[in-house]
């Protein structure tokens, strides 16, 4: 019995973490393509050396508390009213969802100083992922009547195309956001 107890507890000790994907390395031989992104499509999130959060889009720019970041990102990405200062919407044909208006050109640019505390950066990443997760979850419920976790792979793919994660962590002009 003790043996079984140890076997169970040791395998229970799983590591958790926030999964992210880095963009592909830039091609060294090739001249970097300067991608111009319309300013309405970019939301800047900056962290200074004290870990204070500053955000800017076409409508707003100020130091804010992290607690409102999630809602602002959600509003920005969703752009329900097709507001001219938030990301532009495109018609896109997505399998399973049909013709949709999506804001897939939006970019959230996260910039940090070298002496920003890691915790502040992590909390921002956490909020951004949370915002996307909530958006995807809402869409899943609306279109498929199930939560994101219960979707099939194809359905998840469709929702991912509707709300792609465009988080850029480097200079936004150099490397546009990758999934």
């Amino acid at each position, binding site marked *: 019995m*003790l*043996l079984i107890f*140890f*076997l169970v507890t*040791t395998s229970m000790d*799983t*590591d*958790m*973490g*926030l*999964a*992210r*994907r*880095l*963009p*592909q*390395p830039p091609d060294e031989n090739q001249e970097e393509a300067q991608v111009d992104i319309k300013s309405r499509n970019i939301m800047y999130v900056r*962290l200074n050396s004290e870990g204070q959060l500053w955000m800017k889009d076409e409508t707003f720019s100020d130091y804010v508390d992290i607690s409102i970041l999630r809602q602002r990102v959600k509003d920005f990405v969703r752009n329900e009213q097709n507001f001219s200062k938030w990301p532009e919407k495109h018609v896109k044909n997505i399998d399973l969802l049909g013709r949709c208006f999506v804001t897939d050109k939006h970019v959230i640019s996260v910039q*940090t*100083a*070298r*002496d*920003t*505390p*890691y*915790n502040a*950066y*992590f*909390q921002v*990443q*956490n909020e951004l*992922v*949370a915002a996307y*997760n909530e958006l995807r979850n809402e869409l899943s419920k609306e279109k498929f009547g199930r939560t994101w976790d219960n979707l099939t792979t194809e359905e998840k793919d469709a929702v991912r195309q509707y709300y792609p994660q465009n988080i850029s*962590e480097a200079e936004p002009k150099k490397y546009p956001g990758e999934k």
Partner: protein
Amino acid sequence: MAGFKRKEGREMVEMNTSSLPDLIFTILFFFMMVTTMREVTLKVKFVVPQGTELEKLEKKSAVSFIYVGPPTDQLRAQMGSGTRIQLNDRYAEPKEVMDFVAAERQGMVNEGDQVISIKADQHTQMGYITDIKEVLRKSWALRLNYSASRRN
């Protein structure tokens, strides 16, 4: 005399069954040792940040850990209290991450599955993390995991 002989035989049987718990304990201790031996001895101290949107690390064999934080109390006298990066059992420079990634990639069934888990202290300065990320990106280890604990 015949009775004595029979009694001796019974005692033998009893001895066999009594060694069974010992055997099981041996296996138990074996497992305990193996599970603790697998982890590297930590030379840096860290408290990972807390988050809500965490995912479990799957396919443990494809995960490599990078530890970032100040040296442990025992090593502080020698190493100072500046942030250090630990790869396997020793301190390393950010540029050594590339070799580490390549070494870890050896023998992996599916190289695309490789995940790098960064276990960094909350108070680490982002410069270190950015350096590591830049090197990881160059070495095509694009799947990253910021280790954290769940916030209630």
